């Protein structure tokens, strides 16, 4: 077994990217993700990479666009208010079929909000990470080890489908330390014959572009992309099922919240209520199939989030009226305690 080391979630995000061959990073400080940038600034210059601190999140994400369009693995990271600025380049990358990785270590909003953990950017990540018809792959780790695994997967799948990918974490995961085993990823970077890095007089010039002034042409481009999205939905849904076999109450939670939920679920079982947890690992594509599998078996679903209720809409879409869907959440940076989630489960179990 490889050695376990203690690492902060933010450091693991950075180290995983380096292990995956991403040695170009364009950053801008913002709490609670700044350790990602700090880690990169320390490591990258020593391994022939580039850490560049941009003048703004806008610039950082457009540097990412340029680097990724030139065919390399690159990423940027930020926290909620900064992600809003990065959406400009994310939409362009989606529209130009440029794969890249964006990290969001969520904090409370709206506006400047707060700096404590939050999951209030779920809608943004899964519905509107910029203007136009598009999706990005969204992965939601719940442990520091899983951060590493999902960074590898995110780079790989982004390149396979030529779409941007996001790791949607939160301040708690970013700031906490846990043991991790650092292992090289199984897959290597994909070939990128489309990249703009000089045609070397051996091919026609490559154009990375999202502009199509002919409506039908743009429609064709978007429709082609949505065919890829359908393939992603069919193949890339991921979820963990915890104590779901005989569960009567399915508590749905992702990221840091799922850990609190699991503690509450365990406690509920000790008190005689058959609760289980479904933990979406991909938020887009949403693991609809897992919800569908249980919608006729359980008495009800309960979505628990650090928000006023965002993912609950995807649960409802998947349940499609087959069972009641309840919600419990805290927001603004307040982390729900296992006790409050337990109370809600017990109330539903009555």
């Amino acid at each position, binding site marked *: 077994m490889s050695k*376990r*080391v*203690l690492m902060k979630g933010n450091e693991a995000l950075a180290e995983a990217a380096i292990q995956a061959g991403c040695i170009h990073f364009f950053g801008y400080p913002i*709490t*609670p993700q700044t350790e990602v940038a700090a880690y990169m600034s320390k490591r990258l210059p020593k391994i022939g990479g580039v850490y560049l601190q941009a003048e703004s999140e806008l610039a950082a994400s457009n540097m990412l666009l340029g680097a990724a369009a030139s065919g390399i693995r690159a990423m940027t990271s930020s926290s909620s208010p900064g992600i809003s600025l990065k959406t400009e380049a994310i939409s362009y990358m989606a529209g130009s079929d440029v794969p890249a990785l964006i990290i969001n270590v969520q904090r409370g909003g709206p506006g400047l909000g707060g*700096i*404590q953990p939050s999951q209030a950017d779920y809608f943004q990540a899964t519905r509107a990470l910029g203007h136009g018809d598009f999706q990005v792959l969204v992965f939601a780790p719940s442990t520091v080890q899983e951060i590493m695994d999902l960074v590898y997967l995110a780079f790989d799948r982004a390149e396979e489908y030529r779409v941007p990918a996001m790791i949607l974490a939160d*301040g*708690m995961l970013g*700031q*906490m*330390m*846990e*043991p991790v085993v650092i292992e090289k990823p199984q897959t290597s970077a994909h070939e990128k014959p489309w990249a703009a890095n000089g045609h070397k007089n051996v091919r026609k010039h490559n154009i990375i572009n999202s502009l199509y002034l002919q409506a039908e042409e743009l429609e064709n481009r978007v429709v082609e992309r949505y065919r890829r999205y359908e393939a992603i939905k069919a193949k890339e849904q991921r979820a963990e099922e915890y104590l779901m076999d005989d569960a009567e109450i399915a508590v749905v939670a992702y990221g*840091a919240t799922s*850990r*609190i939920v*699991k*503690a509450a679920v*365990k406690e509920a079982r000790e008190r005689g209520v058959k609760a289980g947890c479904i933990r979406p690992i991909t938020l887009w594509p949403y693991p609809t199939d897992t919800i569908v599998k249980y919608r006729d078996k359980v008495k009800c679903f309960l979505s628990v989030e650090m928000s006023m209720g965002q993912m609950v809409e995807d649960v409802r879409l998947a349940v499609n009226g087959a069972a009641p869907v309840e919600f419990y959440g805290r927001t603004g940076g307040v*982390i729900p*305690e*296992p*006790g409050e989630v337990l109370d809600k489960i017990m109330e539903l179990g009555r």
Partner: protein
Amino acid sequence: MEYKIKIAGFGGQGILFMGKVIAGAGLADEKEVSWLPSYGPEMRGGTANCSVCISDEPIGSPLVVKPNVFLAMNRPSFEKFIDSVEPDGIVIVDSSLIDEKASRTDVRAFYIPATELAEKNELSGLANMIMLGKLLKESAFCSKQAIAGAVESCVPKSKQHLIEYNLKAIGIGESL
């Protein structure tokens, strides 16, 4: 056994560092561990606290809300968290800085003048390690070898000369 440890005090007292050493010791003992700091303006002098879990099982919530170990290094933190400690939990209080005692009797409370002892032994700034030493004596949260290794790995490479002082402070705590 799951240790759910809350450490709280002022920024600058080495609260987070102490948590890292404890987590590092748990790691060395091949336990599951987590360390979660409070973060934000605290690091510039306000109150600071961190949650550390050590367990044989995977850690659920890394946020400790009902600690079974509580180390208090200032009065506001003592007041804030003392009621949340689980019955039979261990409470260690730096009595140099906190002149209050727990009104509840269902916890194992220890009052040690950690800050004064640190000054007296020319270990200024290492009251945190004295607290840690006392915890080591009162609970078996980690093995002896683990703690020394954890101190070594937590002290930055540029400050390796401080390892000895840290270990000395832990020894003082253990002797109390």
